[in-house]
């Protein structure tokens, strides 16, 4: 539960986004019960989970009779110029957080500064410094791509001439020049997203918010968007990204905050998160079941802290946590060769973000129908205890 608490002030402008204790209540009354801290804490304890489940799917915006905290003391500190991933199960508060940080929704408590300006007191200043790409590609379907960008440019107060030149510039940068005079109706998902991103980049914002930017895109569309995000980040834009594709967060983010039930429960680099959940483990797949005892003996010699090697239930797979993956790998390989045992596969494996997610939130990453299989061996339950010991 140690979220990085941003320091009170940020005199050097080190952080593009700085949120402290953000709270947002969605309920029939519109106001949280007992606006103070004590009553609210009670809600988030025992009863909070139930209402969370009740509001699942619809992001809890219209939960039943009770209402709930979509955000319940969320802390975020996004260093300038980084890609920051916001990860959490459905209903964790990702979208609410983005909506508050982009001035679309007012928080009920806490404070947030974006680009050095307070989202509540100086929304216009914040709006000049952000770009938002929400869950839908928010472009006009009837206007052409160029007309879209020109319109948004005018609304960003560039004036007609500069809006036109900026539109041309962005069309070229986002590889849309050929489609410039076509309507987005006929665009592929990836093209539509790129136009959406271009519209978000009109003022070259300091912070770009991407709320599930690749949901619903095919693999090619996803890789197009990833490339765009990478190059925007490389050019210095701070990117705050929500996603429930764990590989996406892993590949794109410099840092990740895992949030659940409206709170930040862990914030770290992707590698740090994986390390925290468990270190490297060696996995050896024996060629035949009768070789398993020999493999177990070899693995036991390198297992960290004398941990017992585990074997899979159906496959002849032996695994154990190790301290030094490479050393363990060479040693086990040498030992097995010396004994004349052949193996089908041997390797050192690090925990995936899926495992991190599962451990931290107690829930698998929820992506209806599209969740990547978390683990090849179905008896994955055996592994978590040792992982925690490291």
């Amino acid at each position, binding site marked *: 539960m140690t979220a990085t608490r941003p320091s009170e002030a940020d005199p050097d402008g080190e952080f593009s986004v700085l949120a402290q204790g953000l709270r947002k209540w969605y309920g029939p009354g519109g106001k949280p019960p007992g606006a103070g801290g004590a009553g609210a804490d009670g809600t988030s304890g025992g009863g909070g989970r139930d209402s969370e489940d009740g509001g699942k799917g619809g992001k809890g915006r219209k939960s039943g009779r009770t209402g709930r905290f979509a955000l319940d003391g969320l802390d975020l500190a996004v260093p300038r110029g980084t890609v920051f991933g916001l990860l959490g199960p459905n209903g964790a508060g990702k979208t609410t957080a983005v909506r508050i940080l982009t*001035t679309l*929704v007012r928080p009920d408590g806490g404070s947030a500064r974006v680009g050095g300006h307070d989202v509540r007191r100086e929304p216009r200043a914040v709006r000049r410094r952000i770009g938002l790409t929400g869950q839908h590609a928010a472009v006009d379907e009837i*206007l052409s791509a160029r007309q879209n960008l020109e319109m948004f440019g005018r*609304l960003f107060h560039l004036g007609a001439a500069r809006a036109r030149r900026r539109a041309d510039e962005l069309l070229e940068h986002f*590889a849309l020049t050929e489609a410039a005079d076509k309507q987005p109706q006929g665009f592929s998902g990836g093209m539509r997203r790129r136009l959406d991103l271009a519209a978000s980049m009109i003022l070259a914002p300091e912070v770009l918010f991407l709320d599930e930017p690749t949901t619903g895109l095919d693999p090619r569309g996803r890789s197009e968007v990833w490339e765009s995000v990478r*190059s925007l980040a490389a050019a210095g834009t701070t990117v705050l990204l929500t996603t429930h594709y764990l590989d996406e967060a892993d590949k794109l983010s410099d840092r990740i905050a895992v949030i659940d039930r409206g709170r930040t429960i862990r914030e770290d680099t992707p590698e740090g998160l994986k390390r925290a959940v468990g270190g490297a483990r060696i996995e050896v797949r024996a060629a035949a079941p009768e070789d398993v005892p020999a493999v177990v003996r070899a693995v036991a010699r390198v297992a960290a802290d004398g941990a017992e090697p585990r074997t899979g239930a159906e496959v002849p797979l032996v695994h154990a946590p190790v301290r030094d993956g490479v050393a363990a790998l060479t040693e086990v390989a040498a030992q097995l060769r010396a004994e004349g045992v052949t193996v089908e596969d041997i390797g050192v494996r690090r925990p995936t973000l899926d495992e991190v997610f599962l451990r931290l939130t107690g829930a698998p990453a929820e992506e209806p129908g599209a969740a*990547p299989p978390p683990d090849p061996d179905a008896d994955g339950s055996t592994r978590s205890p040792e992982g925690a010991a490291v």
Partner: protein
Amino acid sequence: MTAAPDPAPSAVPSPAVSPSASSSASPSASSSVSPAASSASSVSLAPREPEGRERRVYWAVADSWTIVRRDLTHLVRQPANIAWQLGFPIVSVLLFVYVFGSAMDVGEGVDYKAYAMPGMFAMTMAFGFMNTAMAVVVDRERGVTDRFRSMPMAPSAVVTGRGVSDVVHAALDLVVLAVIALVVGWRSDGGPVATLAGFALLLWLRFALIWIGVLLGLLVPNQEAAGNLFAVAFPFGMVSSVFTPPSAMPDWLGTVAMWNPVSSTANAVRELFGNPLPAGDSWIEQHPVLMAWVWPVIVTAVFLPLAVRRFQRLGR
């Protein structure tokens, strides 16, 4: 799911291999973005004028105009939409004039055509709030409204722009309908000023209904539900003096119809065009022109604040 990480234990301690390396090998390396997109733009991105209190009005007008241009571009790019939206009034004209017309008795010796045409104009204006509601829902559902709200533009422009373009749209509708009415044989016997005043009253009603449209557009959950608003629009347009005089209806219904704002506008337009009026001696039927001005004021006074409040509640 080609982008899913390889779940099998790898033979060596695996650094994070980018799976996108394979998929981005697709022939188009087209999606690459040059750094200029974010930093080194050749275009100065500073606001065109210093932002200040005195500039607020300027930007409110300029932004509204940008939105109006957008909405009008929709009209130009989708001329078929106008045809579809006018389909119902046109078909009802043909039905009422040619199919039911012979059975319609709105008073001795009254030409039903001359009675029904102003009613059709008023009914088209009455149904117009559905266009507004639909446009509002579509923008909301597609996230365009949120995009506008996350931009440093004047927040009022979204609504005022919508209002102006809806009135322009309605004026276009009236031109088309007037041409059809002329072809069918309707004439205005009022002078040019009175005739123009009649059309102005029609637009005035449409203007007032924009706020109902915006409010409903913000209230209904999605486009399908917005389509169902026809169930509201239909009685609102029809239980009126549009096609039949309220005096011919059962007493209670006739009273409702008389006090329907659509009736006042329809009757006022008939009076200004010199077309036959429904014979009625109640106060409301004796003062159609006055009430055709007053009703929209009342509607606006009630629904404009409600719509604005609902719009602001998007931020709650």
